[in-house]
């Protein structure tokens, strides 16, 4: 069977089990607006603060759906949204769901090179972005896009009252709102989210999710805290950010979104809104605990902390526990948002040292190098399946190698399933660096370095970092007599137009790289050197 048939067989099973249903995100949003229309969404931002309740959001997003329709967007078309955690981004997301349009969230730090790739690969018909935000000039980035390779891109909407001449302003868009617009029927197996993630390949991979896969993830009533205010600081371009927004409709508690992580603002918001739940990476948690202690903020309302995104130091979990905060880890990816999760009531040892138990409906196998199943407590490659597993990459070439017979997805991560049923991630098979929760493809960074005239070959690995978990470290072999310093690398990366976060922060010049007999660079060896 082809991977597609394998996945389709699994889908059929999820329908038979009742895990897949008849609903779309638009249904959930409409019901959310009816059932808890007063629930408030606060967009905390220095640049563009705002607030709206679910009932208003629903009304406005319907009007906006009419506006997008009038621009020619139709079910199945894609819209790229590169907007920080702002009201406009949330409305555009909701409007797209009503319209059956596929949302392509773009991480806000992505530069013209990545945006160009994503727009081309997704065939987006429209792009929404700010004019400028923090130190990013989006309009300048737009000018650097090569529109000739983007025939599908018909509209660029800039969140500003004074947009460049070939763009629409947000207000222009709102002016096109049609209240008479009747949303089309959308099928629950339609793709509604196309999210790009960095992996082993240099180019980001387009991960496709349907209403069913996302609702399976969101419908996890038991693991998700339901009442009380939630603080969400995940960037909007991430799967976690998208899910955080959608979950709000199902749970109906007050939600505060931050467009930029700022530990002291977070501590203040938690104190002010008596926030009960939040999520983040070790980087976020660490910062929060430190500032709260230093600034004497009362964050005692916070009882739940879902931590993920990078390797979590057990000491941090224990430190949080002392501060009265039940921290638990979870494991997932853009492809399979949550495979396992701890719960606040798990024993501290399991919360600190494992990534929790498999969620209802999720299955995991641990495989050896030959693909044979390993026993409990043995370490191997994690393959998984579950109702929230994505439905394939846009680039079909990637699918064949990513799925095993039976519809199992190769996570590329290495881990252990213990005899109590807890999963622990021990290593990443995928060659990526996770910096402050952001996946960075080593290969992509290596390719950019290799473009530099001084470089013969580069090998990039994660350098352990207190703050970010990891940062980008490059080993380079240079041409005879050539020189390369960090500032020049920085210029080079800026000129290539990629996200600043991908720029190496450590540069180690070597004469040769450790290699396997097949000539592959031994990354394990390079990482080991850094750990010393």
């Amino acid at each position, binding site marked *: 069977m082809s991977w597609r048939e394998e996945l389709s067989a699994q889908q*059929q099973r999820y*329908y038979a089990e*009742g895990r897949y*249903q*008849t609903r779309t995100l638009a249904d959930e949003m409409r019901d959310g607006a009816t059932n808890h229309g007063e629930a408030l969404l606060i967009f905390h931002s220095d640049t563009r603060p705002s607030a709206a309740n679910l009932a208003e959001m629903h009304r406005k997003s319907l009007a906006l759906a009419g506006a997008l329709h009038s621009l020619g967007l139709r079910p199945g078309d894609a819209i790229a949204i590169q907007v920080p955690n702002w009201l406009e981004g949330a409305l555009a997301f909701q409007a797209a769901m009503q319209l059956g349009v596929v949302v392509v969230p773009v991480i806000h730090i992505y530069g013209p090179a990545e945006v160009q790739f994503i727009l081309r690969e997704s065939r987006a018909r429209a792009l929404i972005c700010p004019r400028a935000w923090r130190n990013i000039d989006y309009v300048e980035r737009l000018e650097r896009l090569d529109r000739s390779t983007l025939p599908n891109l018909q509209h660029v909407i800039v969140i500003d009252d004074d947009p460049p001449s070939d763009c629409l302003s947000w207000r222009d868009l709102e002016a096109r709102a049609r209240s008479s617009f009747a949303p089309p*029927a959308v*099928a629950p197996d339609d793709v509604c989210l196309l999210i790009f993630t960095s992996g082993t390949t240099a180019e980001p991979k387009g991960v496709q999710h349907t209403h069913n896969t996302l609702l399976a993830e969101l419908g996890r*009533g038991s693991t998700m805290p339901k009442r009380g205010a939630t603080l969400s600081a995940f960037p909007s371009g991430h799967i976690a950010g998208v899910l955080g927004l959608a979950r709000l409709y199902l749970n109906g508690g007050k939600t505060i979104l931050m467009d930029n992580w700022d530990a002291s603002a977070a501590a203040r918001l938690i104190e002010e809104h008596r926030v009960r739940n939040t999520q983040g990476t070790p980087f976020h948690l660490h910062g929060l605990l430190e500032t709260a202690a230093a600034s004497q903020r009362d964050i005692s309302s916070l009882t739940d902390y879902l931590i993920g995104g990078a390797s979590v130091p057990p000491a941090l979990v224990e430190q949080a526990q002392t501060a009265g905060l039940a921290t638990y880890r979870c494991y997932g990816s853009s492809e399979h948002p949550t495979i396992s999760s701890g719960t606040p009531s798990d024993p501290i040892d399991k919360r600190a040292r494992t990534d929790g138990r498999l969620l*209802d409906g999720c299955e995991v196998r641990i495989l050896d190098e030959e693909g044979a199943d390993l026993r409990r407590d043995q370490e191997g490659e994690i393959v998984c399946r579950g109702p929230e597993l994505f439905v394939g990459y846009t680039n079909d070439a990637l699918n064949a190698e990513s799925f095993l017979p039976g519809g199992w997805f190769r996570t590329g991560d290495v881990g252990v399933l213990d005899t109590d049923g807890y999963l622990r991630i021990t290593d990443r098979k995928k060659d990526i660096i996770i910096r402050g929760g952001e996946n960075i493809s080593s290969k992509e960074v290596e390719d950019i370095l290799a473009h530099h005239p001084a470089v013969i070959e580069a090998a990039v690995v994660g350098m352990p970092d207190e703050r970010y978990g990891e940062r980008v470290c490059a080993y380079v072999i240079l041409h005879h007599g050539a020189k390369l310093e960090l500032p020049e690398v920085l210029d080079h990366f800026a000129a290539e137009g990629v996200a600043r976060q991908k720029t190496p922060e450590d540069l180690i010049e070597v004469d040769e790289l450790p290699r396997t007999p097949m000539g592959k660079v031994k990354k394990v060896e390079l990482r080991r050197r850094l750990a010393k």
Partner: protein
Amino acid sequence: MSKNEERNRAVAAARDYDPSKVEFLEHEFETYDLLREHLPIARSEVSQGVGVQGGNVGWVLTRYDDSCEVLRTPEDFSSQSMDYPVRAWIPQAIDPPMHTGYRRMLNPLFTADAMTKLEPHLLEYAEKLVDEMLEEDAFDFVAKFADPFPSAIFCELAGFPAEDYSQIMDWKNTIMHANDGHPRGRELACARAKTMGLELGDGDALLPETATAVAGTTAQEVYAYFGELLEQRRANPRDDLISKLLDTKYQGERPLSQEELEDTLFLLFMAGLDTVASALGLIVQGFATSPDKRREFVALMEDPQKLGPAVEELVRVHAIVPLPRRVTREHSFHGALFRQEDMVTVPTMAANRDAEEFPNPHEIQYDRSPNRHLGYGLGPHRCLGIHLARRELRIALQVLHRKLPDYHLDPDQKAVAFGGMKGLASLPLVKG
């Protein structure tokens, strides 16, 4: 059609699932098959009844095993919801352990032996009605037989005076058939809505609020009527259900309160008047259109060994009740997240045609064995009137076919169906 398109059709069917609409009946079994194959645990967008705390998310189950599980697990799937015209009726809307007490009290009144004693009377009355019906060459089987036969028998059994029969039928039709396509039910409900000064709504259906209000006032009248009868029987007991109810003790300890008596009579009134009539109408309609199956039945019906199983098979194929349940606690049902207050519909007609349990499910096989169909329900609420129902069906079908082995649908007049607890409002037939 591709699998995906088929599934999308199933999704649309589940979203719009409303068995109370007559139109639904046109593609009923096709829809249940489609759902069972693609979406056996399906969420509907149409309210499937209202939970006690107001929630009204609806699910519909089409697999036999799932249906059994729900009906056997009253702790998780309560029979009590919110939309009763007066109070929760007894015993059908009461959960164990209270329910067990009521059933212990009612079961002795409806035993097989007690019902067997009625057989000569059933036979005599059936013959009289069929003879009258056959005075014409063309007749409405529902008006002439299916409706009056079980209803009159039931009124007699219960102790409702014969002269009140047509009033009782009007009450029943107003309460049960205001909005399901039953012409008389709608006519009566509209008339009452007008006298109550209520808005009718402009579509085919009565406004739901109006239908609820009409059912409420009508039920009040029925309750008042029961009140009077109870008064009379207290003074002068007779050999009828009302007197027997006055005589029984709950848990052997205390007599039933006035409210309990009324709530019990109200359920018996609804269960005893319509059910056999509907089953008979549908069975005979089926026979009119498939003469082979009718002849096969006529050939076996005088053999008591074969008649019982044959009638069971007919009840399987012509199951009439979609059973509502309310979820009492959030839990995962095979994988679907059922939340507290969600409503679950278990259409017995869907479970009864699951090929996993019934090979060739759409085919009538008179000697089908095993035949564990859900036509009479399952678990604690399994039909109290089953022994009466079986005897009425057997005798009615025997008498009818002895006197009229051949008949067909009247080509000039169409049968009229109603949805919900489905059945026929009329079935025009022609001899021969």
